[in-house]
């Protein structure tokens, strides 16, 4: 819709119920949920389970996801991928610390991390796509139709590369992502809509592999993220590893085979879970030639994990500072993630925020439920979108300057979408190209930040040194994803930008993967592209018609005729099967209506603020 504004009580069209789902793509477990009869619920698969372990096993000729994959985790550890979320959007050199902690083989795929399996090299995007496809299948089967759109949650701390990788995985799984939603925001949505809470709340999310702390302000239906922080490499898995180290000390087994490691991890998880209810747990592990038996007390366990829990509390303190608040300002604390069942975590959080945390919604499901609520709104099933999610960028975006220093362009916790422009001049006569290096992070030195992408601007008009002024605009969309455009100011020439993501797949690579994937080998790729353009054409036709209905008065008779002609052409081209022609007709219509859209925008800004005259203030 051409930024169409539905008047209250007057919905755009008699709408049919669309199928939408919220997906919590977790490190350890994943879930899918949807809103049915006004209630958000997680969906169960054919085995009657809603929790899907985020585990993918590759055999020579098949792919198994979930519990069945996990069952093979001990016997076929090298081909069973667990915790793949930790690898999303990462370079090989960044995952070296994980090398000893995962039983599968990490390899360097042109700088990116990938996994060597019996089925060949798989990258994290492909592995995640398998999990997403499995969840989407569960949803389609339960709801009886293809999903119109999904909302996928990501840790608030995820940087651009990690978010992009998640979106790529969804694309590969054939899903239409309406929004990437921060996990804590989703959790707050799940609670906020239920209770109508107002005030500042903290969302403490300790999952399997990530820790997020977010400070949100809820008022009059607006969810405002004030600040986010955390640690993308800290979670319940680390509790398990701490216990494993302890067990190793006890048994004296310094070196563990992949299989033994798996067994130790399973034992560690059991101990952790049992210690939420009892004070002492006994365990038994095989050592060379015999069996080792021992016990671990709650106090000992708490001693083991205390430094990790302290680390989360430090992050809480930091994020409060970022938000300019103290712990007194927090009215509620929402607990998310299975690790928040650990009593020490609950008590430390309660002490720090001086309030008993909320745990009434299952901490494993609360994120998926919130995502489902938002998916239902975005797909258009709710006539009036009462809620507004204002999100912030979790890490500062900067540019490399002379001497390996960074210059911040968009500081962290800036509300998104955001656009910032920066001007550059050429330093040589006749210079026609320029390279920019975009990084994400808070540190002064480029080498301490995350490299996001290198951009090469080409086609700068040749002018004397300092003569060309290039205005580079960095835009971050509502999903937190960056795009860059550049323009030479004096000539208006648009510079071409070649993007080379540092730790991500290029558009071409994603397209190749799409073609190569099992999912689409059977389908006709051409047909898929045609359908996409037809759907887009449909949207454009609908949008412009609605806009004309409401605001034809903003156009001259001549303009109206031209636009109507374009619409007729688009409608007829859409019926055919010429993908390129449909694309061209869409672009033609867009160009013709750009001005109209701008005028409508001005008008709606004015009408949004009517009743507020300058005179009354």
């Amino acid at each position, binding site marked *: 819709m051409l*930024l169409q504004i539905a008047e209250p009580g007057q919905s755009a069209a008699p709408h049919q119920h669309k199928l939408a789902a919220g997906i919590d793509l977790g490190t350890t477990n994943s879930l899918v949920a949807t809103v049915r009869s006004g209630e958000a619920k997680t969906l169960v698969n054919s085995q009657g389970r809603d929790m899907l372990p985020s585990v993918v096993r590759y055999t020579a000729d098949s792919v198994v996801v979930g519990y069945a994959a996990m069952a093979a985790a001990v016997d076929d550890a090298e081909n069973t991928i667990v915790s793949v979320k930790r690898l999303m959007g990462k370079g090989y050199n960044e995952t070296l610390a994980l090398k000893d902690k995962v039983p599968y083989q990490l390899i360097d795929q042109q700088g990116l991390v990938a996994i060597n399996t019996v089925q060949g090299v798989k990258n994290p995007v492909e592995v995640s796509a398998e999990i997403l496809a499995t969840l989407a299948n569960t949803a389609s089967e339960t709801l009886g139709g293809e999903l119109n759109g999904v909302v996928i949650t990501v840790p608030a701390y995820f940087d651009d590369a990690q978010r992009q990788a998640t979106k790529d995985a969804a694309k590969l799984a054939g899903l239409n992502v309406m929004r990437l939603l921060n996990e804590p925001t989703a959790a707050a949505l799940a609670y906020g809509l239920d209770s109508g809470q107002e005030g500042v709340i903290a969302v403490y999310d300790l999952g399997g592999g990530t820790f997020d702390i977010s400070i949100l302000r809820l008022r009059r239906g607006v969810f405002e993220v004030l600040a986010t922080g955390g640690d993308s490499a800290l979670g319940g898995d680390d509790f398990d590893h701490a216990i494993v180290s302890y067990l190793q000390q006890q048994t004296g087994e310094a070196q563990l085979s992949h299989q033994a490691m798996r067994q130790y991890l399973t034992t560690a998880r059991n101990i952790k879970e049992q210690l939420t209810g009892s004070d002492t747990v006994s365990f038994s592990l095989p050592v060379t030639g015999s069996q080792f038996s021992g016990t671990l007390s709650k106090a000992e366990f708490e001693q083991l994990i205390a430094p990790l829990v302290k680390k989360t509390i430090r992050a809480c303190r930091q994020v409060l500072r970022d938000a300019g608040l103290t712990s007194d300002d927090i009215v509620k604390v929402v607990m998310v993630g299975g690790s928040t069942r650990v009593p020490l975590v609950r008590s430390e959080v309660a002490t720090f925020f001086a309030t008993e945390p909320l745990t009434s919604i299952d901490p494993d499901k609360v994120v998926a439920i919130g995502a489902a609520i938002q998916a239902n709104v975005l797909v258009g099933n709710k006539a009036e979108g009462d809620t507004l999610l204002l999100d912030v960028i979790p890490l500062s975006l900067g540019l490399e300057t002379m001497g390996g220093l960074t210059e911040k362009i968009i500081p962290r916790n*800036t509300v*998104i*979408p955001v656009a910032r422009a920066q001007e550059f001049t050429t330093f040589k006569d006749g210079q026609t190209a320029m390279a920019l290096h975009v990084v994400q992070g808070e540190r002064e030195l480029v080498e301490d930040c995350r490299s996001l992408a290198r951009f090469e601007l080409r086609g700068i008009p040749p002018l004397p040194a300092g003569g060309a002024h290039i205005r580079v605009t960095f835009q971050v969309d509502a999903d937190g994803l960056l795009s860059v455009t550049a323009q030479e100011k004096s000539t208006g020439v648009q510079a071409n930008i070649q993007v080379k993501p540092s730790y991500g797949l290029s558009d071409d690579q994603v397209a190749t993967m799409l073609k190569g994937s099992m999912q689409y080998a059977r389908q006709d790729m051409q047909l898929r592209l045609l359908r996409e353009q037809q759907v887009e054409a449909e*949207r454009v036709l609908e*949008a412009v018609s609605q806009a004309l209905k409401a605001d034809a008065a903003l156009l001259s008779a001549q303009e109206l005729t031209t636009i109507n002609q374009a619409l007729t052409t688009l409608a007829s081209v859409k019926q055919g099967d010429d993908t390129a022609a449909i694309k061209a007709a*869409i672009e033609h219509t867009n160009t013709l209506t750009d001005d109209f859209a701008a005028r409508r*925008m001005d008008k709606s800004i004015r009408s949004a603020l009517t009743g507020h005259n300058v005179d009354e203030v």
Partner: protein
Amino acid sequence: MNYFQLFNLPAKFDLDLTELGSRYLKLQKQFHPDQHSSGSERDKLLAVQQTANINDAYHSLKQPLLRAEHLLALRGLKISHEQRSFTDPLFLMQQMELREQLAEIEQSADPDAVIDDIERQLQQQKKQLLQQLATALDSETAEQDHLAADLIRKLKFFFKLQQELELIEQQLQD
């Protein structure tokens, strides 16, 4: 772009922040990309651009220094392009003294008390300068505008000191 116009508010330094906040949310509710997730690609892009503008405008008007700078820019005076040095020796002396106090916090017997003391001085100075700034901007003469530009530059020093103070406070806590 005139940010005051966007929010349909009078271009004055003395701004009703509550009113600004409620208008900001109104516009956000209408233009946020989430409200257009089933629209065409072009319309989605427009929504992103428009919300980015609204965010930028709100951000600039909310903070007194940025608001003052924007107001001056609308009157044709760009601070960032102005190269003027301070000729106010009293101000420079005061800055140097405050910097010395900051440097001595860690060695002092009661760092918290010193921090509180510096904090008080900074707040007081800021308040005074902001009042002067409001008066200067209200008179809308070229001469007063230049005075306002000077005041903004001075205030920037105080905001910077405030940041450094907070950093020191953090380091002491950690």
